[in-house]
């Protein structure tokens, strides 16, 4: 269960306060999948980072009673001068998982081959996204925070991602920032629409998508 109550986030830029989120509340039960809808800059990534504990809200609380993944997106969470293998080793230690098992899964899923022994700064954006996504699946969380990443990679990777995420892990919770209406309608039960810092939860996904398209 995740319970976000009146979450507000301000950023300070050159002395000016920029309010990105203003009193946003929502909850997420175990196994439930919530879509995040909003235009670029509406605070989707910020909200995902707050739920993932990467940043702290300026005001409000986010309670968690299940294990929550790091925000899985196009960037972040790895060290560029370390190799894929060393990043994997570090994350395996932090989450107390056997390295061999994690490595086997990531090798199979991310299909990075010999790149795993190269520093990660030499990876393309798609390779980094595939790597971190595979790693988060290998760690096995109760709830996955997904920021657009399922649009990454080629068709084969996308198909396998869908299979791993939505079929094999159908019992997990998910917060999914996506612009793709079919994915949202296929897997999510509710949607949180963000606009100008405000957030509203809709159970009618068609309505939510219509509103999003009109924003």
């Amino acid at each position, binding site marked *: 269960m995740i319970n976000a109550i009146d979450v507000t986030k301000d950023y300070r830029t050159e002395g000016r306060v920029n309010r990105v989120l203003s009193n946003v509340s929502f909850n997420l039960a175990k196994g439930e999948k919530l879509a995040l809808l909003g235009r670029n800059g509406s605070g989707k990534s910020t909200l995902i980072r707050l739920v993932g504990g*990467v940043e702290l809200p300026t005001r409000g609380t986010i309670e968690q009673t299940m294990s929550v993944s790091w925000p899985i997106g196009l*960037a972040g969470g790895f*060290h560029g001068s*370390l190799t894929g293998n*060393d990043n994997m080793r570090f994350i395996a*230690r932090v989450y*107390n998982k056997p390295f061999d098992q994690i490595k086997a899964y990531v090798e199979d899923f991310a299909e990075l081959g010999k790149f795993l022994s190269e520093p990660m700064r030499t990876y393309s954006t798609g390779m980094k996204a595939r790597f971190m996504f595979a790693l988060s699946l290998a760690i096995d969380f109760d709830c996955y925070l997904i920021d657009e990443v399922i649009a990454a990679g080629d068709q084969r990777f996308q198909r396998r991602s869908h299979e791993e995420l939505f079929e094999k892990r159908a019992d997990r919770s998910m917060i999914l920032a996506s612009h793709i209406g079919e994915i949202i309608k296929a897997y999510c039960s509710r949607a949180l629409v963000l606009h100008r810092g405000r957030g509203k939860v809709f159970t009618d996904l068609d309505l939510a998508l219509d509103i999003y398209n009109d924003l």
Partner: protein
Amino acid sequence: MSSFWRGLVIQWRVVGALIIREIYTRFGRESLGFAWIVAEPLVFAIPVLFVWRAVRDPNEHGISLMPFLWSGYLPLLLFRHLGGRILLFIRANVPLLYHQRVTIFDIFLARALLEIFSNLTALVVSFAVFYTIGAVDVPRDLPMFYLGYFYMIWWSVAVALVIGALCERTDWVQQVWMPYSYLYMMFSGFFYLADWLPPSLRNVALYQPYTQAYEMIRGGVFGTTITTYGDPAYTTFALAILTLFGLWLMRDSRKYVVIE
């Protein structure tokens, strides 16, 4: 297992993983990587001490120069290196904060422990080198020496907490740190004993916890052949306050971190 113990076990695992990662990122993965941790402070200490030995009067103020410089320079290195490593450490480690289990405090602890370990090894190795050539003797009052060094570590960690947390809030902490860590050489007690100062100045100098620690270290090295003014009760009190202040700042500093 109670949740407190579980928390502690997780924290130690995270700190351990961070230390290994830090070694990789700083020194590379080759076998020399680990050796560098030990060698780095030695590369500073040994040439500097030899040069001083060559140019200065070996018996200034009636005490021998080498033990005086050796017992002054190693704590100075700890202070400067720990502070230097901790500047902007949060910003430099933003990728780590993606993992909820990794806290700012864990990252701080990993860096500080690595720096302390590296310094203590350098202390032992440099002692062995200078002892072998007859330049320094075993400290006359070992418990006093250890106590003084302990306070020096504590002081360095407490200051690192404060500046590590503050430099996320304002950029001038970095500008101040450079001259401060340099001038520190002059006023810390690295170059003097409190006994050499006029009483009025001495009373002011002894308000500084690091001068207190230096007094205890020197008292340990030279025993009763010199007069020292170390006061463990005052030093503990001053450092405890500084540490609490540093922890409070550090706890709050997460709010100031902006990620990409």
